[in-house]
C-alpha cells in the first residue's frame, strides 16, 4: 500500500541478497526479490529460520559481510538512495536516523565496556557530563530499575531483559525515524517479553517512529503490528493488515497460524504440522 501523497519512510523494491559460499555449492540466495514499504507504522515480517528475514534487515542497514551481494530496483530511506551510498554516508544515517535492535542484546553489547559508556557513544558531540545525564534519562525512560548501577555495570552483570532495555535505550537515544528490530524479544523470558514489547510500543507511538519488526512468531506479530508481511524462501508470500490475519488467504500463512501453539479447549488428537508446498518456493509478490 504505497501512500500516493508522500514518499514512504522506507521503500524497498525487488531486493536480492545472496552470499557466496566457501564450498563448491556456489551462491546461496537469501532474499529473492522482496518489495515493501514502511512508513510511520509498525510493519511485521514473519518467517521461519532461513526465510531471509535477518538478511533483509541487515541489507537495509548495509551491515552484511563483504561476501554478501545486495542489489535491488530501489532501496531508499526518506528519499536517500541507500544503494548508491558509500560507507561514509551510510554512517551518517545509521544510529541517528536508522536504528537497529538485534536479537540477543547480551552478546550484542561489548563485554569489556560498561553499558553506560556504550550507550553514551550514541550521543555525539556532547560533553561527558551532558552525555551521562542524557543516558540516565534514557535508562529511566525504558523503565530500568537502577539507572546509576546500570551506568557502571558490564553486560554480563545484567539480566537479558535489562540488556535488551539498555539496547533499546541506546537505539532510541539519537531519536531515529525508523527502527529495525530483528527478533528483539526472542531471547527473553516470556514475562519479560511482554514488558519489552509494551515499552517498544510506547516509544514508537510517542516519537512517531516507523518500526520494522521481524519475528518468527505469527501470533506476536499479529497482536503487535499494524501490517504483516509473510516471508518464505526469501520471498514475500502474503502482505496483509494485522486485523485481517484471521482471513489470511495463503495456505502458508494459514498453516503458520494453525501450528502456533495455543491452549485449546478440549483439543484431542495430534498437533497440527505445517504441510509445505514446493510451489511456494517459486512464488513471489509484486509490490504491495
Amino acid at each position, binding site marked *: 500500500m504505497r501512500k500516493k501523497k508522500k514518499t514512504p519512510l522506507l521503500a524497498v523494491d525487488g531486493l536480492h541478497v545472496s552470499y557466496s559460499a566457501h564450498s563448491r*555449492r556456489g551462491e546461496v540466495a537469501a532474499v*529473492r526479490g522482496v518489495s515493501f514499504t514502511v512508513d510511520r507504522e509498525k510493519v511485521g515480517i514473519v518467517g521461519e529460520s532461513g526465510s531471509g528475514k535477518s538478511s533483509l534487515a541487515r541489507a537495509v542497514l548495509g551491515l552484511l559481510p*563483504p561476501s554478501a551481494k545486495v542489489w535491488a530496483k530501489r532501496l531508499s530511506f526518506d528519499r536517500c538512495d541507500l544503494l548508491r551510498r558509500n560507507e561514509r554516508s551510510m554512517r551518517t544515517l545509521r544510529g541517528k536516523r536508522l536504528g537497529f535492535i538485534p536479537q540477543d542484546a547480551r552478546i550484542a553489547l561489548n563485554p569489556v565496556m560498561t553499558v553506560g559508556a556504550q550507550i553514551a557513544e550514541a550521543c555525539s558531540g556532547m560533553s561527558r557530563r551532558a552525555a551521562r545525564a542524557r543516558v540516565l534519562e534514557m535508562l529511566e525512560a525504558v523503565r530500568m530499575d537502577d539507572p546509576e548501577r546500570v551506568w557502571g555495570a558490564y553486560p554480563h552483570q545484567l539480566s537479558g531483559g535489562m540488556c535488551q532495555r539498555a539496547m533499546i535505550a541506546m537505539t532510541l537515544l539519537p531519536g531515529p525515524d525508523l527502527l529495525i528490530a530483528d527478533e528483539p524479544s526472542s531471547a527473553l523470558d516470556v514475562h519479560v517479553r511482554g514488558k519489552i514489547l509494551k515499552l517498544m510500543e510506547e516509544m514508537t507511538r510517542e516519537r512517531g517512529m516507523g518500526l520494522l519488526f521481524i519475528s518468527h512468531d505469527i501470533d506476536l506479530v499479529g497482536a503487535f503490528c499494524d501490517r504483516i508481511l509473510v516471508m518464505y524462501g526469501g520471498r514475500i508470500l502474503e502482505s496483509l493488515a494485522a486485523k485481517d490475519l484471521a482471513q489470511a488467504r495463503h495456505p502458508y500463512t494459514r498453516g503458520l497460524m494453525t501450528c502456533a501453539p495455543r491452549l485449546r479447549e478440549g483439543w484431542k488428537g495430534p498437533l497440527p504440522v505445517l504441510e509445505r508446498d514446493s510451489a511456494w518456493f517459486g512464488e513471489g509478490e509484486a509490490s504491495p
Partner: protein
Amino acid sequence: MTVSAQETLTFPASRASAGLAWLCRVWRELAANPLTLAGIMVIVGLLVMAVAAPGMTSYDPLAQDLSQRLLPPSTAHWCGTDELGRDIFARIVYGARITLRIVLLVLAVVAPAGLLVGCAAGYLGGWVDAVLMRITDIFLAFPKLILALALVAALGPGLDNAVIAIALTAWPPFARIVRARTVSLREAEFVQAARLMGAGRARIIVAHIVPLCLPPLVVRMTLEMSGIILTAAGLGFLGLGAQPPLPEWGTMISTGRAFLLDQWWVATMPGIAIFVVSLGFNLFGDGLRDVLDPKTETRV
C-alpha cells in the same frame, strides 16, 4: 539456508570411500590456495632432494679439495665452496637428508607420546590428569631451546642426542591439544552411547576418541615442523648437533661465520636453505589449518 538449486544427496559406499572422498576434498581446497601449494612444492622438493641426492649433484659433500677452497658461486659450483674446498650445493643437498631425518624422528616420537599422554590425562581425569599435566607444565615452563641445549650439553653433542633433546622439549604442546580435545569429547553423546553398549575404556579411547584427535594433532604437527627445523639448526649452529664433517645446515653456518665478511656465501647459502624449508612447512601448515578450521569474515 535457502538454496537456489535443488541438490541431490549422495552417500558414500563405505567408510573407506568416505575417508577417501574427504581426503580428495581437503586436497582440492589445499591446492586452491597458491601459497599452500608453494609450501607443498617446497616439502616435495625437500623429499626429492633427500632421496635423489646423488642424482642432483655430482660432487661428494665430504670430499675436500684445498685447491678449490672459498670459491664464489659459479656455474661449476652453484653455491661456491667452503673453507675445505667442498661444494656447498652438494652439502646442502645431502644436508636435506639430515634435516628430514631429524624432523621425522622427532615427530615419530613426539606425536604418539603426546597422543598417549593427552588421551590418558583427558579421559582418565583425576590424579592421573593432575600429575601428567603438572609434568607437561614443567616442560612447557622451560624455554625450548635452552632445555634442549642443557640436555645436549649433558648427553654430549651428536645428531641422535640432538633428536632426543628436541623431542623432549617438543612434546608438551601436543599433549595439551590432545587432552583438550579428549576432555571435550569425553562427555559427547556418542561416547556415552558407546559406554552404554558396554565398550571398555580402551576401546572407546582407541576407536572413538583418538581418530577425532588426529586432525588438530596433524595441524599442530605441520606447524611445529618449522620450529623443529629451526631448533635443530640452532643446536647445529652452537656445535651441538650433527658433528663435522656431516653437512648439517646449522653447523655449516657456524663454520661459515668466520669468513662472513669476505666469503659471504659459505654462511649465507645454508641459511637460505633452512629459511626456504621452514617457510614451506609454515605455508603448508597455515593452509592446512585454514582448510580444517576456517575462520569467518570481517567487516568494519
